[in-house]
């Protein structure tokens, strides 16, 4: 089922939470709503599901306006961060709840109901737990019960609100892969809310980045990571370093040092140069570049993370090999892929020359752990 959100606004009292959002989600897509807390991502999910009413605008399912529909009619499968299982019911009864709540005419016979619940429990690999109560299950198992319960009503869309937020790292990883597998199998249009960029990039077909109730960018994980549309996305998704620089006559300068990075003639004044730590090239002495003092070298998995001081501004870079010099030494660096942002302005005003990029090795994606 496709979802279309048109000009959607939501306020709680005088407090606006969502500002005139437009968003189209295709049939069978797995979409992440990513943003910091307070960005409105959960509210957006709840409006789509019918748990909140929009102040303005429409939500359409398959082109049909469902804005006025009560939640019961929308047939959405909801999964919450803290599972919200019915504690006084067995796992079986939890999953059967939606089937038993159907209008009398559509209700399944008891044997058909048993068969359906058993299928779902097999899908979530919890067949042997059907008589247990939720309190006796681990967090990961409880979340799987919650998912089976949501799937039981043959939902038109699956809405997951921080589904892995309450789980520890190992379980979270397993469950992520497993949600992906369930999605492959069911092909249900799925929307999930997360503040974890790794989760969004790894799991989603497309990512919607939200900030302060507005959409900053919609794109595939590659687009979001490699082509951030705004400075916020650049900083929020993946790691980045930022240097405050001056532009004089189309050249970037840091203090009295000129960087051999060229931008358009029409740009002047103070800007921020933003780049990913892995897009920093080390130059031999005499090759120019930006002089920086090496502060520290940390081993991070297979790579090395170095802290640098550029005339009082701290940045970090990532390298494949341990640098040959000791902390305290002067080194020369050059960002290979970067964007230049005017202060207070979200869009980049300049970026690296695309020709330069062709020669560069494909950027390996690294994310925050």
């Amino acid at each position, binding site marked *: 089922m496709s979802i279309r959100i048109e000009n959607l606004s939501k306020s709680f009292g005088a407090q606006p939470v969502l500002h005139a959002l437009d968003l189209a989600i295709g049939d069978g897509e797995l979409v992440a709503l990513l943003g910091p807390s307070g960005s409105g991502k959960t509210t957006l999910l709840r409006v789509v599901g019918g748990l909140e009413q929009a102040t303005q605008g429409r939500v359409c399912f398959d082109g049909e306006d469902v804005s006025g529909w009560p939640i019961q009619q*929308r*047939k959405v499968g909801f999964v919450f961060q803290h599972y919200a299982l*019915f504690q006084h019911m067995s796992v079986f009864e939890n999953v059967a709840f939606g089937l038993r709540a159907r209008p009398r005419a559509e209700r399944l016979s008891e044997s058909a109901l048993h068969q359906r619940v058993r299928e779902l429990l097999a899908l979530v690999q919890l067949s042997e737990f059907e008589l247990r109560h939720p309190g006796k299950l681990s967090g990961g198992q409880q979340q799987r019960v919650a998912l089976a319960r949501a799937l039981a009503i043959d939902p038109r869309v699956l809405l997951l609100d921080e589904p892995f937020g309450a789980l520890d790292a190992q379980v979270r990883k397993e469950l992520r892969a497993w949600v992906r597998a369930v999605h492959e199998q069911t092909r249900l249009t799925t929307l999930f809310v997360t503040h974890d960029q790794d989760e969004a990039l790894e799991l989603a077909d497309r990512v919607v980045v939200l900030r302060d109730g507005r959409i900053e960018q919609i794109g595939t994980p590659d687009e979001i990571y490699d082509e951030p549309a705004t400075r916020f996305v650049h900083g929020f998704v993946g790691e980045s370093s930022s240097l405050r620089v001056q532009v004089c006559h189309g050249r970037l300068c840091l203090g009295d040092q000129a960087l051999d990075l060229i931008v358009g003639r029409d740009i002047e004044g103070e800007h921020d140069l933003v780049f990913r730590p892995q897009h920093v090239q080390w130059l031999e002495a005499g090759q120019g570049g930006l002089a920086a003092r090496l502060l520290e070298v940390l081993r991070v998995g297979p790579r090395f993370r170095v802290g640098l001081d550029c005339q009082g501004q701290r940045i970090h870079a990532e390298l494949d090999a341990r640098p040959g010099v000791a902390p305290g030494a002067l080194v020369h660096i050059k960002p290979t892929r970067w964007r230049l942002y005017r202060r207070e302005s979200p869009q980049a005003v300049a970026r690296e020359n695309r020709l330069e990029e062709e020669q560069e090795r494909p950027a390996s994606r690294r994310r925050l752990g």
Partner: protein
Amino acid sequence: MKALGVSSRSLVDALPLLGALSVVVVLLVMPLLVVFTEALHEGLGEYFLALREPDALAALRLTLTVAAIAVPLNLVFGVAAAWAITKFEFPGRQLLISLIDLPLAVSPVIAGLIYVLLYGAHGWFGPWLAERDIQIIFAVPGIVLATVFVTFPYVAHELIPLMQAQGREAEEVAMSLGASPWRSFFTVTLPNIRFALLYGVLLCNARAMGEFGAVSVVSGHIRGETNTLPLHVEILYNEYNFVAAFAVASLLALLALITLALKSWLEWRHGDALASGSVR
């Protein structure tokens, strides 16, 4: 030296405990013992004779009737109020929370007087009621009203913190699965609060049966008609009929003991469900 140090230390530790124990004995246990010894001191025969006396039986019947009306009413009011307060946002919500506490803040005698001033012969609605030959004050309806007022907070008070901790997610899930609000209430909300509800009802009942002040003002003390057990105890006592007074009082003491036992059982057996959200 060392042994002395340890023992004097443990004596210091024991002092607060001894203090608390003596307070419990003097203020709680001894009065309870006095009730039963006084009630039984002329033998079991006299004791049961006092209880079988028609006015005593009438008082018992009235007390049970009043509780049988007031407790279910407050059960419904309490659940409805707690549900509205914890599951919805609406203007006047804070005011409602404060209003629920009002009966705890007001002296029961004042509560009784309010009803006399409203429904008594010279009260606001007095003439209107008199025309229609409806008697509220100095009759059973007044006693029920006063009791409902005084016992109103108990159920809601038990439920509000629990339901607040539980949040709305379970109901939201139930409704997303197609359940109507009623179905969601009976299959999800109610089971989640059942022990706290029982606890609240228990306290509400104990107070309903034991209430003296408010009921005393509105009852009119008509023997065999508008006397509840606590009022009957007072009358008997004022007539120097100590055996009968204590015999009737022992019924109330028994009620208290049963309530206490049930309460402890609930706390011991279902403490988790009473204290925190059982949704998580």
